[in-house]
């Protein structure tokens, strides 16, 4: 990487630049934007969407690049062109895992697109935990990472509960209202600089779960549909044509694992590599500690949900790992790697026999971990339906819906 040409986010810029964050997980990232203010950043979650974003993306990104890149770039450039922001006082923000799939190159693609669009001077901040691309004006501190972790956890709980409640609620809109209420409340809480204790966080968990549990729900037997897939397409309503709500409108109940699993996968993946190849020798101690901490955080959430509600809690990650092992080697780490397979099995394990595997058209890792495992997963779990749905700018909605309807028709028959 040619670091000399990169526009750095300087300490000077930190003073008055606005940092734009793309929509992937709207609720999680809204909290992230908020908590960044505590550390002196002025961050904003982008909310522009629709055909314009896609068209803009297509203009500035190679058409064969995966769909998430098109959307992220489209959203950024569309925002910059909207006149809403002072482009001379704006920076962009994106995550980078440094894995072997092309998603690690999104940052470069964003920069290339910026250059093409005449915004080559705008800095792009890479959020990563492997020390790629240093910026004088953006430093991850431990307290900030801690706050970020809680924004992920809060976001996960809201998403998990809201999905389940939405599918079963008696009064349409109850769950969404609660989710909005809690997102707003937690955005405020995370944006306050006053330190908060873990005890307080756990109390918040409890209140949150109780509140969702108070929604009146039907006892109807709905078809559960597990959503797995490439992380951006799986989570982003912009990318997956609002798949969750579509499923709910079709009378099904969507289920999906949260973002924490991906973080755990990321950390645990390095421990696995250390095991297999003796790499990451220097960081292994730290990785193991981080893994333990994450597991504990997950357990606390599971406990609260179990104690306070009838909602289905997340699967303990160590169990998730065990579920994957008979199907795929844990050395498959690119993209969502073995985690994607694990999530399929996790759904089956919990009685969700219908699974939609979402990916951008031509997604490289998903040839292996998505479509590549369907045969064996179906063989070993008779009665399980899995379909793959590819998303891109031109994929026809009718074909996608047709496939989903087929899945649901099949599910109805099985029951």
């Amino acid at each position: 990487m040619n670091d000399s040409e990169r526009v750095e986010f300087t300490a000077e810029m930190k003073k008055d630049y606005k940092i734009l964050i793309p929509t992937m997980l709207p609720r999680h990232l809204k909290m992230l934007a908020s908590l960044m203010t505590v550390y002196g950043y002025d961050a904003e979650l982008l909310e522009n969407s629709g055909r314009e974003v896609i068209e803009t993306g297509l203009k500035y990104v190679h058409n064969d690049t995966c769909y998430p890149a098109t959307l992220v770039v489209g959203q950024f450039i569309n925002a910059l062109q909207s006149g809403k922001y002072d482009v001379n006082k704006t920076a962009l923000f994106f995550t980078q895992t440094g894995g072997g799939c092309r998603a690690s190159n999104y940052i470069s693609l964003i920069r290339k697109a910026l250059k093409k669009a005449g915004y080559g001077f705008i800095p792009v901040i890479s959020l990563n935990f492997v020390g790629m691309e240093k910026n004088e004006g953006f430093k991850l501190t431990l307290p900030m990472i801690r706050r970020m972790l809680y924004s992920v956890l809060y976001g996960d709980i809201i998403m998990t509960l809201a999905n389940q409640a939405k599918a079963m609620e008696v009064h349409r809109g109850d769950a969404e209202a609660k989710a909005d209420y809690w997102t707003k409340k937690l955005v405020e809480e995370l944006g306050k600089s006053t330190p908060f204790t873990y005890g307080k966080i756990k109390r918040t968990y409890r209140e949150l779960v109780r509140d969702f549990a108070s929604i009146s729900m039907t006892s109807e037997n709905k078809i559960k549909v597990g959503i797995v897939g490439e992380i951006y397409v799986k989570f982003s309503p912009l990318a997956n044509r609002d798949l969750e709500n579509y499923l709910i409108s079709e009378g099904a109940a969507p289920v999906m694992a949260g973002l924490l699993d991906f973080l755990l996968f990321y950390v645990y993946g390095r421990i696995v590599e250390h095991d297999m190849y003796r790499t990451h020798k220097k960081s292994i101690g730290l990785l193991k500690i981080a893994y333990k901490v994450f597991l504990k955080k997950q357990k606390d959430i599971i406990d609260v949900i179990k104690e306070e509600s009838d909602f289905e809690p997340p699967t303990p990650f160590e169990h998730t790992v065990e579920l994957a092992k008979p199907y795929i080697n844990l050395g498959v780490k690119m993209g969502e790697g073995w985690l994607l397979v694990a999530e399929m099995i996790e759904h089956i394990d919990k009685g969700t026999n219908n699974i939609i595997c979402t990916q951008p058209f031509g997604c490289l890792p998903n040839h292996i971990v998505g479509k590549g495992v369907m045969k064996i997963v179906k063989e070993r779990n008779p009665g399980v339906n899995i379909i793959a749905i590819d998303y891109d700018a031109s994929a026809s909605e009718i074909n996608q819906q047709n496939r989903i309807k087929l899945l649901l028709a099949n599910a109805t028959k099985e029951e």
Partner: protein
Amino acid sequence: MQPLSKEVSVGVDIGSTTAKIVIRDGEEVIFKKYERHYSQVRQKTLSLLKEAEPYLRDKKVKIAISGSAGMGVAQVARLQFVQEVYATFALVEEREPDTEVVIELGGEDAKIIFLKGGVDERMNGTCAGGTGAFIDQMASLLNVTPDELDEMSLKCGKVYPIASRCGVFAKTDIQPLINQGVSKNDIAASIYMAVVNQTIAGLAQGRKIKGKVMFLGGPLYYNQGLRKAFKETLKLEDENALFPDYSLYAVALGASIFAGKADKTYLYDKLIEKLEEAVKARREVASMPPLFADDDEYKEFKERHDKETVEFADINTYSGNAYLGIDCGSTTTKLVLINDKKDILWQYYNSNKGNPVDVVKDKLKEVRTLCGDRITIKASAVTGYGEQLILNAFHVDRGLVETMAHFMASKQFQPNVDFILDIGGQDIKCIKIKNEAVDSIMLNEACSSGCGSFIETFAKSMGYDTREFSKLGIKGNAPVDLGSRCTVFMNSSIKQAQKDGVSVENISAGISVSVIKNAIYKVIRANSPTELGEHVVVQGGTFLNDAVLRAFEKEIGKNVVRPAIAGIMGAYGAAIYSMGLEQEESTLLSLEELEKFTHTSKASVCQGCTNHCALTINIFSDGGRYVSGNRCEKMTSKGKIDEKLNLYEYKRQYFSNLCAPHKEGAKVIGMPLQLGMYDLAPLWVGIFENLGFNVKLSGLSSRETYLLGQDSIPSDTVCYPAKLMHGHIEQLIKENVDAIFAPCLTYNIDEKAGDNHYNCPVVAYYPELLKDNMDILQEVHYYAPFLNICDEKELAREFVVTMPKDIIDADQKRYLEAVKAGFEKYRKYKEDLFAETEKIITRARELNKKIMVLAGRPYHIDPEISHGIDLLACSLGFAVITEESIAPRIGDVPTNILNQWTFHQRLYRAAHYVLTQDDMELVQLVSFGCGIDAITTDEVRSIIEKEGRIYTQIKIDEINNLSAVNIRLRSLIGALEMREDKK
């Protein structure tokens, strides 16, 4: 009011092109009807029901709607919808319960339903053609009706390989066969075979089709040849192949079964009322502003373009010299005769009706007759797809590559032309001109040819003539947004638009805009009009369509020049070119010779090398022959390839002779020679030979390798090299190896040049995928361990952990010895490769030849992957070397992207090295479906173009046709020559 006596159940199936209705009274069918709906989905449903009034009035009507276009109708009319596959399922259960598999082909849908042993349904996804619409399209390409196509197929002698993944690919394969004069009977059968392969590979995806199979849908109902192809390929006995007489109505019948089970009943009038409302209702669809705001705007447009014309002279009165240009394009043939002043004396433009030789012969006779003794044809030139065939058949003086022909013609209209966009029947060509020379050329990739013939076929399918259809587009008030990917996607988008009840006018306009967007954003990849240039000339038959032209002007926000002769520019340019030859008399056949001219063709297989090209030998009445279909000129009189100038060939030989002779009694370990193995095989062979094994590499791939493994490929969009892996495994098992070794490598060799040293996900993990998708691997010892090759000791340790003791019993020390031997063999390979590279470069320079760095991945040397492009380059006069052979000559290079893959960092280094060598040109090979190349191509291009050099990219897939590659490489040569002339 009479009491309602009876219940009837109505099933309606609205597919992509047809609507079907079935009415049943109990089990008995009392009414059925099958009609094309020409995208008037809601009206057609309504009219079908009205037609059935006598059977519905005064009955309790139960109804269910099915089909891909039926979803919208059902939704708006609030009627019961049944998923189509599911409807089929219900029908089968009722009629033929012991059926195991249902194969149904529809207009644009294809599906397989597995009924036994785990119910499973497979439908064509976002990337798949090869259905009824595809067969229709192919028939019109051959200029026959679908029925005639069927009859012809039954008389076939030889089946040619035609890419089966999507219609566009297949078409690219078929076109050269037509142009080469292959018998239509053979082509017809080959088309059906492609559909069969498509269904099996694309849909069954590894699941075996066996037992009783029921075939449904229009194409399988009407086409005997297709039935035969399916039956034979699947090896089905007569009693296991069901072709029921209700085949066309299967889904509608199934829907009626569902209707019967419903509680809700309607009265006829109520039902009609519901549908009438639906016809009125319009859902919001993504649309764009109209092409013309008002009539005045259209008038201004018309007048402006009418001015761009050429002078004409009367051939009946003119006497003097004349020059003839012929453009034998993919679907059309064009001829132009000009005088000394470049005025047009005579012209011809029409479809080549699948037989360009006959068309050209007739027209030459006509022009020779018209010329008589008054006009002397001094010179002639031919360009286009059929260039070589026509050149040889009629003794045309000279052939030239079409890009040059278009440039020459465009200059007549716009002397300062700096950008030419040509959209023809099935190709898009963009030519950028800088300093009076062709600066770069872009051709559409095989996947994006939403070009002229697409509009034509689509117009036909809707029951319109092309011209009429495009005129409708001008009137569209809100063109539908169809996206800009490939034809197949567009078909689905149109389906969606039909479902939403969009008018034909707006669909037509939408298609025009899509074709243009495709050209601009997919082929040219421009992001602002200034990038295209100041003086844009558009041409090609597709631009005769005003809607397309307008869409282009609107999209780039600039007026452009469309010569009045936009359709014949290639021929016009060829004529002008021939004028420059300054000849006394053309060698073109005389009228007498033309009278006697006949042409026959026969198929043959070249035995010149392992490629075994399918050849077509054209024999002309004067004894002349023209062989086509071959990748190289090796076996024809014209060319001789200097094999000492081809590093691809050297590498192939090297890998073919890599393994030591087998020792008696030692165990044989097999390795698939594909993907990363094309680089690392010396390492693994070295290790296992040191451990005392006989090593067997699966060898170079061929089409058969692919066919051998195609039914276990789980993802139809993965790259072709990965797909070939399945065949290599089958090959090894056939050879009875004792074990198969295929390592999974997250990390490749660290060449210390880049930010990381990953393999791409597919190269890294494909062996893991094979384990669970190829049942046959249960029968052998298959080892796909996860290894790290960056450290010798560590690798030895991992061998101890991962290799089973029953096949190798070695300790870490022993493994370390073997690993060291392996790395030694790998080092030796690299050393030999670099030495050979140096030899080739030196020799090329002695012979004053240009050196082509044919850059891609190590596995691109496989003859089934690069399809002989290296040989073609050699026969065009290049010496060929590879990216990894020169990458080490330069260290780590700066990049604008994250440089994290071992194979790919070599590309950037090679590109930088090429910049330092005046006699080297870089041509990049890109595997279709390689996501990473979306990143590398932009980067390599920017490295090369920064220094003003020419970047050429070639996309490769299972596609087996070198014509497009030929154009590209010859244009490259043309551009280089023009640049040299400038100096």
